[in-house]
């Protein structure tokens, strides 16, 4: 019975109902969309790292510490047999790391020089661009951020200076052969990429490498010697820690969005219910008990939330789908404002089941509460006052 009356009231109220439903639907949309953007940003950062840098994991030279450039000098050796076998099978790619200095346009810039096989397909980098016919200079690939910092473009030449395995400084001319677009600033900023064989030759480290990144489907093997196996969880731990540290911020943002939504819904519902004081008085005069009046208006609030969820799907579903498919262009240049996190140039929101269900549940509860409170207040009035249309404030 209550359900029938509530449905009749909702559908019969026409524009008033649809305005309330629209406000609630916008709240659903905004909370889901903004939270999904936030989740998308974090997931994207993780995905880009794995795609361009981590792949399935790595074997590190025991001296190698990527956070300490001073270790690079000693972090190199011939690959252990098992690891070498992976490289030979093209299931892994070797990288030789060393410190270097470049002198673009008469300035000195300390850089990390990494030698990588130009034929590799393990990580998503355009290393094939390092293959050139002219062997008179060192072919160098850099990222767009580095190019901007160093004011370099394709074809520019500059001096590279490095310390080789014999502790001797050497220098030669490098030429930019490609500027790569990458969302992973860790491959870009202060990095120069050269062909692995060239790097081994320059550093007098024939057949040596600092670390080996292997493909996603490769299982850890025996015979790694002293090289250390680093699985994917180890390699993303920094990012996971960063995301975990960011959880309170995400929660605060979610709460702020909910509070904004709650205020909008509260205004719409309270205004709607207080305007119906006379109707509530009439229902009481016709013999509806106070508790049932409160129940009726709370139920109407609940149905409002259900309609809002449906409206969100119909009205905003295509928008959510569009952004989920094509992403949103962010226009952020990380090379100018280092944010400590990989920021996608085109961000894809992630609508997790948890996010959608939690938002639907929480917004529905808010709607129920803001429907219950004012109707309870009006139902507590004397029926004669309610009949006269007095408000319960």
């Amino acid at each position, binding site marked *: 019975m209550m359900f029938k009356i509530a449905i009749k009231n909702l559908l019969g109220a026409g524009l008033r109902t649809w305005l309330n439903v629209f406000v609630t639907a916008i709240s659903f949309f905004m909370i889901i969309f903004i939270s999904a953007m936030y989740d998308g940003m974090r997931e994207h950062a993780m995905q880009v790292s794995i795609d361009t840098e981590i792949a399935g994991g790595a074997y590190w030279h025991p001296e190698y510490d990527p956070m300490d450039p001073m270790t690079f000098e000693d972090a190199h050796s011939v690959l252990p047999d098992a690891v070498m076998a992976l490289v030979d099978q093209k299931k892994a790619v070797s990288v030789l790391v060393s410190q270097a200095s470049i002198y673009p346009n008469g300035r000195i810039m300390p850089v990390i020089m990494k030698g990588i096989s130009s034929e590799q397909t393990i990580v998503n980098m355009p290393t094939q661009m390092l293959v050139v016919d002219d062997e008179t200079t060192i072919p160098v690939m850099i990222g767009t951020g580095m190019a901007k910092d160093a004011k370099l473009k394709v074809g520019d030449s500059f001096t590279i200076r490095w310390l080789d395995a014999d502790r001797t400084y050497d220098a030669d001319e490098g030429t930019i052969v490609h500027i790569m677009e990458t969302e992973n600033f860790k491959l870009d900023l202060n990095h120069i990429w050269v062909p692995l064989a060239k790097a081994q030759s320059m550093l007098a480290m024939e057949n040596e490498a600092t670390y080996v990144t292997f493909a996603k489907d490769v299982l850890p093997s025996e015979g790694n010697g002293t090289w250390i196996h680093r699985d994917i969880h180890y390699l993303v731990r920094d990012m996971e820690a960063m995301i975990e540290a960011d959880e309170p911020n995400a929660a605060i943002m979610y709460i702020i969005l909910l509070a904004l939504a709650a205020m909008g819904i509260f205004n719409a519902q309270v205004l709607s219910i207080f305007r119906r004081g006379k109707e509530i008085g009439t229902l009481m005069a*016709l*013999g509806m008990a106070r508790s049932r009046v409160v129940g009726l208006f709370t139920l109407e609030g609940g149905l409002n939330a259900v309609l809002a969820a449906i409206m969100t799907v119909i009205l905003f579903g295509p928008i959510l789908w569009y952004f989920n498919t094509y992403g949103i262009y962010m226009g952020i240049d990380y090379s100018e404002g280092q944010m400590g996190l990989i920021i996608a140039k085109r961000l894809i929101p992630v609508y997790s089941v948890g996010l959608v269900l939690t938002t639907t549940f929480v917004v529905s509860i808010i709607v129920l509460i803001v429907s219950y409170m004012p109707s309870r207040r009006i139902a507590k009035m004397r029926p*004669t006052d309610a009949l006269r249309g007095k408000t319960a404030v």
Partner: protein
Amino acid sequence: MSDSFVVQIHNLVKKFPVGGDFFTALKNINLELNHAEFTGLIGPSGSGKTTLLNIIGGLDSPSGGNVNVLGSDLGSTSHAERAELRRTKMGFIFQSYNLLPVYSVFENVELPLILNKIETNERKRLVEQAVGSVGLLDKIDSRPAQLSGGECQRTAIARAIVHKPALILADEPTANLDSENSHQIMKIMGRLNNEMDTSFVFATHDEKIMGYLRRIVHLDDGQIAKDELIENPQFGEQS
């Protein structure tokens, strides 16, 4: 309470708080209304007629005295019990109709039956009967905004009688109507009073409808000034 009385009131007092003091709206009212009476509570504005009607209807509670309506002592009943009494045994007609604007005539009239949990087919039959008895079958699907004042009040009457209550309370039912509609409304209510054996109590100061009443209780300054039975109402048996 005697079976012939639908309302018995003894020493009723009603006070309203005004600022730090009280305003006494009803002073020692004693009144008995018989079964199937067609009674008017008459008096100027502020005389207490609407307050008395609201107390009889259980919409307001007395400050003192006893009020017994249809066998229930309103002084000792809860909100829920008074709501049930109104739902099952009373009908209300208001000056401004109080129709629910989003409902059609059918749905407005159906509402008391829904509240009384009457089965769907029976509801339809009773609604059509009630709407037919006030001559509005051709407007049964209209909304209040599409009706004239007289049609709205006829809808309100149909809503008040649809569940065949023992007592119908009407607060200034003709105050918003022109003369012709007022007479029509009173004729309809008079006819229903005869046909349904239902008691009607009006609170009014509308001179036009006095001639239909068979009992007039004059109120003045919260007290009963005169209680008169009309042997031959001016408009006969409201036919």
